[in-house]
């Protein structure tokens, strides 16, 4: 059907896959929205990405992951320390994680942080442990999905670049 189909070059290199990739991306995004993993703040983030900073979203997310991993490590460390129950530190870490998560629109992570903070305020260590586990799980899920998303995005950008080779150079 497609004229490019017989050239032997991968479809996306010819740009024909762009539509499919876009659909995949949208599907993945809508899934994440539907699951409540992301919220509209993520869209805002995407809107902030323009030609002057084409990788803005992935940059921010990369930093987010970097920071969050540090915070999760800290949280686990603080919780596992049996002698000390550093209420204040836990709160600070959680607040930071919550703030950054809400900034990138990671809704579920943010909500779990809120619950975690509630558990901290109630001094409920077992609830904290549970919350931490859920939080780590959610975090991994988010990370995987966003990685998937960025991969598709990358392919798409490559495809776009193939299709409109001029655009990349013009920038």
């Amino acid at each position, binding site marked *: 059907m497609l004229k490019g189909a017989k050239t032997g070059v991968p479809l996306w290199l010819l740009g024909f896959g762009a539509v499919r990739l876009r659909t995949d991306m949208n599907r993945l995004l809508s899934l994440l*929205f539907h699951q409540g993993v992301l*919220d*509209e*703040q993520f*869209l*805002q*983030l995407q*809107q*902030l990405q*323009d030609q*002057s*900073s084409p990788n*803005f979203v992935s*940059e*921010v997310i990369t*930093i*987010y992951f970097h*920071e969050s991993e540090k915070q999760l490590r800290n949280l686990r460390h603080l919780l596992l320390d049996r002698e000390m129950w550093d209420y204040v530190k836990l*709160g*600070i870490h959680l*607040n*930071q994680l*919550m*703030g*950054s998560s*809400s*900034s*990138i*629109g990671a809704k579920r992570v943010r909500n779990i942080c*809120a619950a975690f903070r509630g558990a901290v305020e109630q001094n409920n260590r077992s609830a904290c442990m549970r919350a931490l586990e859920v939080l780590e799980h959610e975090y991994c899920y988010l990370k995987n999905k966003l990685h998937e998303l960025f991969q598709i995005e990358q392919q798409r950008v490559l495809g776009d670049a193939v299709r409109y080779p001029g655009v990349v150079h013009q920038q």
Partner: protein
Amino acid sequence: MVHEMEDEYVEDMEVEVLSSMWPEDIDEAGKKFNVERPGSHDNMLEDLAFVEEPSIVDFKRLVELTSYSEKGSSQLAYLVQNWEYKQENAVRLLREELESLSKQQREVELKKLEIFEQHKFEEHSYAGDKRPVSVLDGVYEIFQDIPRKRNDFIVEDKRLKIDAEYDTLVYWKQQALELRKQLEASVQREKMLSEKLEESIEKLEKQSSPVEELSQILKRADNFLHFVLQNAPVVIGHQDKELRYRFIYNHFPSLREEDIIGKTDVEIFKGGGVKESQDFKREVLERGVAAKREITFETELFGAKTFLIYVEPVFSKDGEKIGVNYMGMEITDQVKKREKVAKLREEIAVQKAKESELNKTIHITEETMRAKQMLATMSHEIRSPLSGVVSMAEILSTTKLDKDQKQLLSVMLSSGDLVLQLINDILDLSKVESGVMKLEATKFRPREVIKHVLQTAAASLKKMLTLEGHVADDIPIEVIGDVLRIRQILTNLISNAIKFTHKGKVQINLYVVVDPYSDPQEPNLNTGRSSVSTQNGVILDERAENGSHSHETVVWLRCDVKDTGIGIPEIALPNLFKKYMQAGADTARKYGGTGLGLAICKQLVELMGGHLTVSSKEHVGSTFTFVLPYKVSHVCDSSDDTDEFGDMNDNESTDDDISCGIFQFQPHTLGSLFTSNGPHKERISAFPDDLYTIPCSEVNPKEISILDDDHSCLTSPSSKCNSENENTTCTKTEKQNCDDVSVASRSPSDHNFYNSGEARNGEEVIKSVTKPKILLVEDHVVNVMVAKRMMRQLNQDMDIVNNGAEAVRAVQNCAYDLILMDVCMPVMDGLQATRLIRSFEKTGNWDEATKAGVEPHNSLSFNQKSEKSRRRIPIVAMTANAMSESAEECFENGMDSFITKPVTLQNLKQCLEQYVE
């Protein structure tokens, strides 16, 4: 032989008599008593010892009764009849016997005659020796006694057997002897029979006394009755016409005979129920019909007891009432049980009813909740992507576009906003209904609200309508209320008015009214004061820095939204404010809409403590009126501008329109909406000074300067005044703060920032005079990145520090126009930093900061700038949790406003417009 026969007879007779001892036909006559034949169980009765005391009888009365009362007499007659019948039977038997005897006698006589004829001739010779005729008479008599059934009995030998030769002397002698023997035997038999007869007669006489028999029968019946009734909780009695007891049977008597007989109930007992029973008996007596009733007695004698009473009237033979028979049975326990059961049943029924009611309610509630939840969820689901669309369009509008594209984009934005509004409506409604809706109290200017609402309406107006706003002079310049909701109400009402109006005008009138809920003195005071404050600008009430209002006055404002539209039929008025209701089905078809608007308006107005009413005349127009209470805010100085409505605000809104009272928007053609020059600015001569005309499609004219990248602001701050709009010529050059050119600023580059969070002080950069200086205090990298990026989209640049202490230092070094302050931060949080900054603004020194450990590092610049920096810097908090309490905390610590995280382009933009422009 005869004797034997006699015995048989007697036996038969005895059986007859015995059976009659108990009146058989009592059984047949009505089966009143089912009694066994007494003969077989005579002993049974004898075994029982009857205590006859309980039965107290007035015997005279009984006699009277039996002779006068119909029942008694019939009973008596019945017994007599029975007795008579028995006697008759005996007589009949005797008669029959007699008959048979006489028959035999006749036969014997015939035989005798025969013999006489045979021996006529000898008769005289033996006359002396022979027995007189009386002997034969005796034989005759004897035969009379023989009962008939022995008829077959052959009394005599037909022939005497005589051995002697016939007709000889011997023969005759022998015959005479034989006959004589026979005669003797006959005489003897006669004697016996007569004896027997006498005996029988005697016996008959003995038996024949009816009184004895009757009394026996009665006694037997009495015994049976006693036997049956001996343990029954039954009272039986008879009372005469005056209801005096004549007879009473009570197995458990508590009174003696003389206490009862001849007295009435009332005379005997005292207490509850006695009168009732007496009345009941009287009633029965009067009516002549038997009746039953349950009566509860409450007497001293036997306490509380319930009796089932059966009373029947007693009639005399002529049908006159002569008294009542009365029978009572104690059923206290049964009544108690019955009542208990009834109560239980009732309770069960009530319980069941409650249960089903509850179930129904639960069901309905669940349904409603689910429906609401679904609606809210759906609305939310729709809103998220839609807000994406709208936000993207907004961002698109900030990029380089040509005129046409901008116009199209603005239409797109307004449509998107409309849909968003609708969805927000639904969400609002469910919020209000579920009680989640919280009202905010912010300062606002009613005139501007009206102006903006009209302006917005005019912008999308596609009809030839005039929009007018009249604000009375005594309306305070600023009041406090939930401006967003008030605007929502106004917008709703206006858009409704426009929708249903095809020609003429739509008008908003705002004026002060007296407090509808208090005495007339107070509101006058209010209006008086507010008008003073308005006209003279007198500060009645110094508002404290942290925003606490110590002496607030309340003013009631009435707002009429008047149109000259199609009006509302009277019949539709009651349903007007109900959800999803419109004036009529065809209205919905013709004009569209969800029917939610008015419902929301009403609920919002009521939530704010006011009320919304409507008056309308079909084909003439409608007026929607809402009255709301507002707190009056007292402004300390005019430069403390708290304009909430930056979004549509144009820069011309300066001091002169603060008190402007009349706005008018003339109709314009559809095409003009899309011309770049947009508005027809017309001045109506009637209102030469006050008239405020609004350009309908003015693009946000705020100065736009574009910085190529982050570094540019560090090195070469330049302002590019980019007049994208031909008609927008205003470029602000006179910002109050922009004259201090040598302001120290720290604007860390991204690179530095990410490497280390440490503060870099001392870098003094000469800032652009046209750009506001903004400080972002935020500790988290991601948030910083996002916020920074957004600011760039908004063509603003800002400095960034990582905690409160750094923020204080930054303020010491540089005069900022706006500080965006994260609340939760390490080292020093936003609240403390704000307090320190406010303390400096108040006192002019940094003592508080020094105490808190933040040393002013550059005393030189501090001294130089101390005077100028003492202007109050707007500080906007950024909080991660949107709870109201944390908002209050922010305000208490001197912050001006707060943004809920995540920071969005929209609220950042609003914030800038509010505090920087």
